[in-house]
């Protein structure tokens, strides 16, 4: 099973080797898609692969260490009323989460493919994209 999660942690939690423990203690494959740490804490976007049970235990482990865990679906949001379907975002999206559907002429947003890198945010002329993490 594979899942993408967004982590928010305090500066204290940043001192705990959480990714190491996810790998070593919970037998998960961890792909770090995005990581940022500053004086007020950190954010990380991880792709976790492993057994469903191990993933659940891994997420419980993170939560018990004061790390906020949210599904990636809550990483980037598109305001459907604002999007004009121009397509500016399509060529800069590294995972093709934003893609052009030539049949409908619309830009599709597949949240499962999004890694919340944020490259689309300031590229969107009508400002339809919002990053929540």
């Amino acid at each position, binding site marked *: 099973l594979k899942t993408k999660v967004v982590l928010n942690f305090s500066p204290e939690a940043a001192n705990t080797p959480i990714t190491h423990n996810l790998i070593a203690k919970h037998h998960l494959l961890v792909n770090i898609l995005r990581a940022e740490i500053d004086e007020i804490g950190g954010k990380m976007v991880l792709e976790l692969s492993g057994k469903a049970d191990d993933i659940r235990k891994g997420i419980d482990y993170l939560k018990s260490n004061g790390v906020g865990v949210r599904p990636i679906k809550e990483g980037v949001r598109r305001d459907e009323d604002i999007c*004009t379907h*121009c*397509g500016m975002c399509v060529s*800069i999206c590294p995972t093709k989460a934003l893609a052009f559907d030539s049949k*409908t002429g619309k830009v599709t947003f597949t949240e499962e493919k999004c890694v919340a890198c944020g490259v689309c945010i300031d590229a969107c*002329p009508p400002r339809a994209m919002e990053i929540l993490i």
Partner: protein
Amino acid sequence: VSKSYDEIRKKTMNGDVVVMTAQEFKEYVKANGVKKAAKDVDIVTTGTFGAMCSSGAYFNFGHSDPPIKMQKVWMDGIPAYAGLAAVDAYLGATELDDTNNMMHGGAHVIEDLVRGKAVRLKATAYGTDCYPKKEIDTYVSLKTVNQAVLLNVRNCYQNYAVATNSGSRTLYTYMGKLLPEYGNATYSSAGELSPLLNDPYYRSIGIGTRIFLGGAQGFVIWEGTQFNPGVPRTPAGVPKRAAGSIAVIGDLKQMSSEFLRGLTFTRYGTSLGLGIGIPIPILDEEMARACAITDDQIVTAMFDYSQPARSRTVLKEITYAELRSGEIELKGKHIPTSSLSSLYKARQISQILKSQIQKGEFMMERPVQSLPMDRVFKALDVRTEKEAM
């Protein structure tokens, strides 16, 4: 076959005019040939929705008591040009406040008004015997002003460049975000749906042409600024570079935010996202042939925007079919492409225009004067007074 404007207008009034969107017409020609299409179809509707920077709106606010001769005007903090009569002002789409906040420029204020919002109006003046008031701070909306008119000096470009970036850093341009090392390429024409690409020599689009403008009806009032019909063309006569453009006018009070949007191009500025649709009468086979053009027959040129020069060298000529495929090839590299103009909205506009004509709500006009074919695109050089004469 040959049809006159009068015949087509009469058919429109009788309700038996045959209208197709540009997309439908191209398919019809493919299936039935140009001859039959020219005979069967009266009007083809085109459409585009894109960033059109040379746009703005003028207002007449009405007179205060005591009256003021507004010298400086701000609408929601954005300066408007007031060097006109007492309470007239023009707000440009790309105008910013004095902090250069690009999230909210003139275009956004125009959109807010169209959405029915009230906008804070501030004005200052030096005061005269006939206009004693020296400042005013109030709110206006489309309900309170006398006139609110969209007046754009260059819209609806006939073809445009493709932008890419060979440099090592991301560029923020009016063509959007350009990733380094040819990371992407952006283009901005609606291609085969674009009004002026379906009428390459401006036979039917001229001064007085009635158009769909921002959801309302407007008119072509002049050639657009930088009108440049003399660029290289394909054998079919379609310009391969930015060529013609139009100046347009329409009642802002009738427009809709669905087809009029404030846009932000990061670190460049603001622009107006605007929808324009133009009906093209199929007067004869030549018009039908022009409207039959498809994306694979429309060529444009790609330029390297990291070259900070007035005339950049052409990297490659490409068709809109290649651009629309999502990826183009340059020097063995595959470059993902992005459109800056909305195909979805372009189709929507051509569809709306078609149904308005069918219902007799939109009457196609014969232009009262053609656009000039002899214009050239001159540059601005630093010159002496004598050299400028």
